[in-house]
Structure formats: C-alpha cells, structure tokens
C-alpha cells in the first residue's frame, strides 16, 4: 500500500515536471535575482562612484587598445622575467656559496670526525645533502622574486586583462584565455602553473592548460638554456655577436615552447578532450592598489615555500640515487657507466648521448640538478681530471671550464642544440607530476601529461639530428 503511494508520487512528480517544462531553472534564477535586487535597493546606499569608474575605464582603454595592449604585455612579461633571472643570480650565488662551499665541506669533516663510515658519509652528505642544497640554492631565489611580482600584477587587476586580450588566440587552439596566465606562471615553476589552472573553471580548458603547462620553460631550465647557449651557440658567431646570438637562441627555445603549447592544445581539444564540458567566462575585476605586504607574505608562503618543500622532498632521494649509481659497481664498472653504455646508442640516434639521458632519468625530481649531474657523469666516464669525486655533483668555475669538460665528453653544436630542445621537451619534474595528479585526480591524465612531452622530445631531437647529419 505504502509502496503504491510512493510510486504514485513519483509518477505525479514526473507529470508535473513535464508541465513545468525546461525553463524551470531559468525562472528560479530570475526570481532569486529579482529578490536580491529588491533587498539591495532597500538596504544598500551607494555613493556616486562615477568618477572612479571613469578612471578604471581610462586604464582599460589603454591596456586593451590595439596599439598599446600587446607591446605593454610583452614589456611587462619581459621585465618580470628579466628581474627574476638577473635578480636571482646574486642571492643564488650567495646561497650556493654558503650551502655548497662552506656547509658542505663542514658537514663532511663533521661526519668523518664523528666516525661515519665512508659510504654513509658519501650517501648522506654528497648524495642527499648536496642535491637538496643545490635545489634550494637554485630554486628559492627566482621563485621568491617571480611569485611576488606575479601576485602583485594579479592583485592589481592587470592579469585578467591579459587573458582578455589574448583569449582569441587561445580560443583558436581550443583553450581558455586564462591559459596565458597559467603559462606565464609556468615560466616561474610548472608545479605552480598547474596549481594556478584552478582559475580556469571550464573542465576541458583546464585539462588542456594542465597538460601543456610543461611547455613553459621553468626556472629550473632557464639556467641550463642560458649556460649551454652561451658555451656552444655563442661560440659559432663572431665574439661581438655571441651575447646576442645566445640570447636569441634561448628566446627562440622559449617561443618554440609556446608554439608547441598552442599546437598541443589544439590537438588535444580536437581529439581526446573533445567530449569534456567546455564553458567560458572571464570576469574583469576593478583595479585596486595591491596590498603589498600581504601579497608578498602569501605568495611566499602559499606558492614559494610549498613548491620548494615538495622539490626538497623529491630531490633528497634523487641525490641518494645519483651517489649510489656512481659508487655501486656491477663487476668492475659502476652502475652509472653501465647504464650510460646502454643508453649511448639511443642517445646517439637522438643527437644526444648516454650521459644526458641518464642525467635526465635521475634528475626527474628537479631540472636544477641536470647540469651538475651531467658534469659529474661526464668526468666519471671520460676519466678526465676535474670534479669532486664519484657521485658528487659540481659546477665548473666558469662557462669556459664547463665547455671544456662537455667537449671532452664528445659534445658538438648538435648535442648542445638538441640538449636545449630536450630540456624544453621532456617529462615534467616529479614535483609537477605529483601536482598534476593532485589537481586532476586522474592517473590517465597524469600519464598523458608526463609521457606526451617526452615522446615529442624524442621525435624532435631525432629529426633534428638526422637532418643535421644529412646536411653536414
């Protein structure tokens, strides 16, 4: 009897739903807004704010104008990047000096004095400590400069206008204008860029932004690009042009990254992501003076420290692995030498070498330690003098010294160019991979985001190598 009643009720509700029709949700929202408007008009007294609005409109007219909009945008981005890269050199050198040149030897001596066995000493101090110290020294200063600057721009209200100006370009690639912001954020750190995609509230466009964020050269990769370009690209042009040539090469790689970002966004939105829900809206908030100290504080705590902490957590075991592979032996050669031999044929096919591939495998946790690892491994397998011992990452005193070590490892201009390409197109670091998983909660998209760039890197370096060899 009761059951019958319930079924009758359900039937009745279905009938009524038919009668109400599709407009139900519309009418409800209209009603809510009408009520809200009534309450507002009764309760809120507004001052005449016309003057202020006009001021906002004047800024907007300039920022979104055909003439000034785009130059202004590039100027702001270039300034932020320049401040970050150049400004970070000094604190980085300072931190490096303290953490690597003073505390490291001190810890080593301390461990010896306490009576640590040599292997434990090497494993903990040369492996774990050194990797962590390196990541902190290289990663902390640029992030501590970049994120506050970026957050200030965001707070002021400029960044939504950038998304507004650029949306049409991104729309053609099937993406959201706000991806311009997450991409710029990726220039600082891809993990932070992936977190920043939360501002995109359309599921399809957000996934696109997450998967393609890795095509923005991050802080960990800028120094690699600049170093290699200076050593190899700068050397093939006359001395007086070497600075410009290497700068052009680095910018070229960054722009190429944007090209890949658009291409991949387009391909994803036309294929695998076709069915994901897509909406668009972009709010342009009024300009307001940034709350300076609060912004600095939150951007340091929320962005810099969290990312740094994750990087440290991942770098520590990487350091241990780097030390272990260089010191443990299979037969009479180290694991590192053995793996490098294994990777060498494939590396050659890509115009790279086994050392580089191994360095990119062990340095998945942090792009910052790729060059120190390459240098250490090159010294290890070539047996040339230099370096600080098996499994101890180091950096040469000057670009020239670095160049000498790399050339004795068999590097040519092709190796250098392909390294720059591979540095742009390879899997995200483990911090970013972990962040992608946290943000998407999907193993599938995490795997796609991790594997896709590596495959592209293999294909691009392979093609460049073959064409180079055919033409050379």
């Amino acid at each position: 009897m009761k059951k019958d009643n319930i079924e009758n009720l359900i039937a009745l509700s279905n009938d009524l739903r038919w009668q109400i029709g599709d407009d139900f949700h519309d009418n409800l929202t209209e009603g809510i807004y009408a009520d809200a408007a009534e309450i507002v008009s009764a309760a809120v007294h507004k001052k005449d704010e016309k003057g202020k609005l006009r001021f906002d409109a004047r800024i907007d007219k300039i920022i979104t104008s055909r003439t000034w909009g785009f130059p202004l945008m590039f100027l702001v981005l270039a300034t932020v990047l320049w401040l970050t890269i150049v400004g970070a050199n000094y604190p980085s050198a300072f931190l490096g000096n303290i953490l690597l040149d003073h505390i490291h030897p001190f810890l080593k001596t301390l461990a010896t004095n306490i009576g640590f066995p040599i292997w434990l000493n090497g494993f903990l101090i040369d492996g774990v400590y050194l990797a962590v110290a390196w990541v902190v020294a290289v990663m902390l200063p640029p992030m501590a400069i970049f994120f506050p600057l970026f957050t200030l721009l965001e707070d002021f209200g400029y960044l939504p206008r950038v998304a507004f100006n650029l949306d049409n370009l991104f729309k053609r690639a099937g993406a959201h204008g706000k991806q311009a912001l997450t991409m710029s954020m990726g220039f600082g750190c891809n993990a932070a860029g992936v977190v920043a995609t939360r501002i995109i509230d359309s599921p399809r466009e957000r996934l696109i932004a997450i998967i393609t964020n890795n095509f923005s050269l991050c802080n960990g990769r800028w120094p690699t690009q600049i170093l290699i370009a200076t050593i190899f690209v700068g050397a093939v042009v006359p001395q007086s042009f070497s600075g410009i040539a290497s700068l052009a090469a680095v910018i070229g790689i960054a722009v190429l990254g944007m090209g890949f970002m658009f291409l991949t966004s387009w391909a994803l939105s036309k294929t695998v992501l076709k069915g994901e829900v897509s909406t668009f809206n972009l709010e342009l908030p009024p300009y307001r003076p940034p709350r300076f100290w609060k912004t600095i504080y939150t951007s340091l705590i929320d962005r810099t420290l969290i990312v740094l902490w994750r990087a440290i957590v991942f770098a520590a075991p990487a350091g241990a692995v780097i030390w272990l592979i260089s010191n443990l032996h299979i037969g009479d050669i180290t694991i590192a030498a053995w793996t490098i031999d294994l990777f060498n044929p494939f590396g050659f096919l890509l115009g790279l070498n086994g050392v580089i591939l191994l360095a990119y495998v062990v340095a998945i946790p942090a792009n910052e330690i790729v060059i120190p690892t390459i240098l250490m491994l090159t010294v290890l397998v070539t047996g040339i003098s230099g370096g600080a011992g098996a499994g101890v990452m180091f950096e040469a005193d000057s670009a020239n010294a670095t160049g000498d070590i790399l050339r004795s490892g068999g590097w040519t201009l092709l190796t250098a160019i392909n390294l720059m390409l591979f540095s742009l197109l390879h899997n995200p670091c483990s911090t970013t991979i972990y962040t992608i998983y946290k943000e998407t909660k999907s193993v599938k998209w995490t795997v796609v985001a991790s594997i896709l760039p590596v495959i592209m890197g293999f294909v691009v370096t392979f093609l460049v190598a073959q064409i180079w060899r055919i033409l050379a």
Partner: protein
Amino acid sequence: MYSPVWALSLFIGISILLFLLFRPEKGWFWAIRKSNINNQKIVIEDILKLLYHSENQDKILNINDITTSLNEPESNILESVNEMARHSLILIEGENVRLSESGSDYALRMVRAHRLWEKFLAEKTGFAESDWHHIAEKKEHELTDQDTDYLASVLGNPQFDPHGDPIPTKTGKVADIKGIALSDLDVNHLGRIIHIKDKPDIIYKQILAENIHIGSQVRVVEKDSNRIVFHCEGEAFKLAPIIAANITVSLLKKEYISEDNVARLSMLNENEYATIIGISKEMRGESRRRLLDLGFVKGANVKVDLLNPLGEPKAFLIKGTSIALRNNQASKILIKKD
C-alpha cells in the same frame, strides 16, 4: 650500418603506417575492430528505425528501398530481414515491409535511446552539435532498457531532444509537434523555430553555420522559388527553400510581441544600452547555468564595457560587473535595445 638517411626513412615509414592504422574514423585498426563486432543486431535495429521513420511519414517501404537506404551489403540486409520476420518484428506483404506491433515497440525504444543520448551529449558533455547525431547513432545500439531509463531520470525525463524531436516515454507516449516547415510559412507571418532536422548532414551543417537557433522567433519577409528571406533576432537570413524545409516552425499569432526590437547581445554596439530578454534554448547545460549565475537573466540591463583588440571576447557590464563573453555566447543572449 647507421646512416641518417636510412634512419629518417624508417621513421617516416613508421609514421605513415601508424597514421594509416590509427587515423580517426578511417584507420585500419578501427575498421578491423568494427568488423569483429557482430553487427546483425545493429543492422536489424537500423532497419527498424528506418521503417519507423518512414511509417511516421506514411511511406511504405519495400525491400529494395531498405537495401538502398542502408549502407550495408545486400546479403546482410536480406538475412536480417528474414531474421526479423522469424521473430515477427515485421510483416512482409508481397514486396512491402511493415512493422508489427512488437517491431514498433522495439523501434520506439531505439528512438528513445537515440534521442536521450543526444540530449545527454548536449547537456552534459562538450561535443560539438554536428557530432551529436553520429555519436548517438552508435551509442543507441549499446544502451539497454535499464540504461535508457536511468539516463532519462538523470536528465529529468526530458520531452524533447536538442533538435526539437520528441523523446518517447518509457510507456511509448510521444509528444507530437504541431508545426509547419519554414519553407511553407507565408510572408509576414510569425513563427517560432521548434525543430531543426539533423539529417542530411550537409544541410544540417549549413543551418548550424548560419547560426540559427531553436526557440527563435522568425518573420518571413520575402519568398520566391529560389530563396526565403526572414528576420530573426535582429538579423536577416537568406536560405534556399530546400534548406528551410528542414526547419520546423510553430505558427504564432500576429499580435504576439513584435520581434523587431529583439536582437542578439553580440550585435550590441558601444555606448548602447539594452535589456536582456532571455537566453536562447541553444545555450545548454553548464554554460547556460553559468550565464544565469553571472546575472544574465531576463530584465537585467547590459551595455558593452570593453572592446577587444582581437575582436572577441567583448566585455559586457552587467549588474555592475564587467564580464567578458565570446561571440558564440553573446549571440545566444537575446536583448531589447533601449
């Protein structure tokens, strides 16, 4: 042993092979997989649907018509027709084929599954309008009765699919649409678009490209054997009669609100003010909710706030906030200029 030319050729060869295997739709891999699926059920269901739609238009088909309409080998179709006769889904009278009562029921269930899935695609996914029909055409064969019932309840037992076709209920009730083809609407008569036919593909895509929406009011202003000109939401459209025949309109009384003031938000110029009349039926699902939540509701005042250096999106001032919308969204919001 190694030569860059060889390596490059090998790579190009492998790429071409992969492309041939996996390219969308036509790839060999998909073709092989498709041929492995037992497709007699699919053929039978397609014949049922064909018969159902023809009988709805009072056309009686013979076996010849069926073989020419379906893209299947003749032997397959004949086999399926025999199978259907054995299960008394159809009655064969001489050359002519008719649906039996149980066949009719079955066909109605297929139609229900197809239209519900189209509704689902429109409301809950991001697939493009032109893809809906093709996806539903495949999916309808996979849905069980429980699936369709569940789908219907999730979607709130909708009456119509996104093209304006009625969705049969579980008990087989079909709401009927009372309307005439746009090509039959007389000059100066008002109508409201209630249905856009999604077949044939070429015509449907043309209508989509014209940006004509279900639920819009139209008024025919000129008509001859070559073309029909009508006003709709502040714009003039010209269509060939054969295309207009695929659009169904319901007649509206002349004294119904005149549509001359109605325009689309995308047509609002700088320094003009307007009041929102509503959001087009074509704005669906998540996107529609979002617009409503932002305050694009009936009666709200709106003006252009900012033009874009690249054309779109434009920012509109609504409820004191500046919201940027792309043209395809703004064209689905109806306004009355003040």
